[in-house]
C-alpha cells in the first residue's frame, strides 16, 4: 500500500514539475511576445508622430516656401524634370538662375528646418526605433527627390558656414530608405 502511494507521489511530483516547466515556458514566450508587441507599437507610434509633425504648421509653411521658390522658376523646373540631367549641368543651371542672384537665401531657413527634421527621422530609421515600413512609405520618395534637388544648396551653405554636415542626414536617409516605388 505504502509502495503504491510512494509511486503515485512520484508520478504526481514529476507531473507537477513538467507542468511547472511548461507553464514557465509559455509564460516566458508570452512575456517576450507582449514585449515585442509593445516595442512594435512604440516604433509605430514614433513613426506616426513624425508624419504628424511633417503636417504641422511650421513644416507646411517651409514646404510652401520651397514650392513658391520653384513655381517662380517654371523654365528651370521644365529643364530639370524633362528627362535626365547631369549633376554638373544641374549645378551650372542653378548657378545661373539662382545662386548668381542669391535667390537661394529665400529658402535657406526652410532647408535648415527640413534638414533638422530629416536628421531626426534618419536617426530613428537607422537606430530601428521607428517602424521602418511606415517611414519608408511616407517619407522615402519625397526624401529622395529633396536630397537630389537640394544637395547643391546644402553644399553652398556648407561652404559658407563650414558646417559640412548640412544636408548629410537627408542624403543618407534618401540613399538608405526603400521607396515603395523602388529606388532610382
Amino acid at each position, binding site marked *: 500500500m505504502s509502495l503504491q502511494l510512494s509511486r503515485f507521489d512520484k508520478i504526481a511530483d514529476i507531473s507537477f514539475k513538467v507542468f511547472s516547466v511548461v507553464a514557465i515556458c509559455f509564460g516566458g514566450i508570452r512575456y517576450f511576445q507582449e514585449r515585442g508587441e509593445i516595442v512594435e507599437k512604440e516604433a509605430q507610434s514614433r513613426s506616426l508622430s513624425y508624419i504628424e509633425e511633417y503636417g504641422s504648421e511650421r513644416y507646411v509653411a*517651409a*514646404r510652401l516656401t*520651397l*514650392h513658391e521658390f*520653384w*513655381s517662380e522658376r*517654371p*523654365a*528651370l*523646373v*521644365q*529643364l*530639370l*524634370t*524633362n*528627362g*535626365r*540631367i*547631369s*549633376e*554638373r*549641368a*544641374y*549645378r*551650372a*543651371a542653378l*548657378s*545661373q*538662375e539662382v*545662386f*548668381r542672384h*542669391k535667390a537661394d*537665401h529665400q529658402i*535657406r*531657413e526652410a532647408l*535648415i*528646418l*527640413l*534638414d*533638422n527634421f530629416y*536628421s531626426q527621422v534618419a536617426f530613428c530609421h537607422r537606430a530601428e526605433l521607428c517602424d521602418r515600413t511606415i517611414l519608408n512609405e511616407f517619407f522615402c520618395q*519625397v526624401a529622395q*527627390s*529633396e536630397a*537630389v*534637388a*537640394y544637395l547643391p544648396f546644402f*553644399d*553652398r*551653405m556648407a*561652404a*559658407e*558656414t*563650414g*558646417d559640412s554636415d*548640412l544636408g548629410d542626414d537627408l542624403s543618407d536617409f534618401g540613399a538608405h530608405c526603400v521607396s515603395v516605388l523602388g529606388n*532610382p
Partner: protein
Amino acid sequence: MKSTIRTLLLSVATLGPTASAAQDDAFFLMSGAQIDCIAKNVDSYLSSSEETLFIRPGDCGSERTGETISFMEMTLNAAPDIRIAEEQNIPDEVVVLTREDLACIARQSLPEVASLIAFYPDGCRVVVRAP
C-alpha cells in the same frame, strides 16, 4: 538648438563674400557649331524679355532658332523630381544663359571647328574640350 546655430552661422556668412569656388567653375557644354550658331543669332535670343534664358542649342539653326523655354504654369511638390544622369562628354540639351552671357558670346572669337566646347559664364570663358 542646432537649427538656431545654423541660422546664426548663415546670417553671419551672408555678410561676407558669398560666391564659392564650386559655383565659379560652373560651365555648359555645347558643340562648336551650336555656340557659333547662338553667337550669330544673339539678336533673336535677346528679343525675349527674360533676363535669364533657357536655350536648347540643338534647336539653333532650325525654324525654332531664338526660342527659349518658358512655361507659365507648373505644378510640383516641395522639390522637382530630378533624375541625375552620368556625366558624358556630349553637348547639354539646354543651357542657361543671361543676356550678358549672350552678348559676350557674340563678341568672342570662337574656334572654327570643335566638337565640344565648355562655356564658363563666370568670366565668359570658352574652352575647347574636344577638337
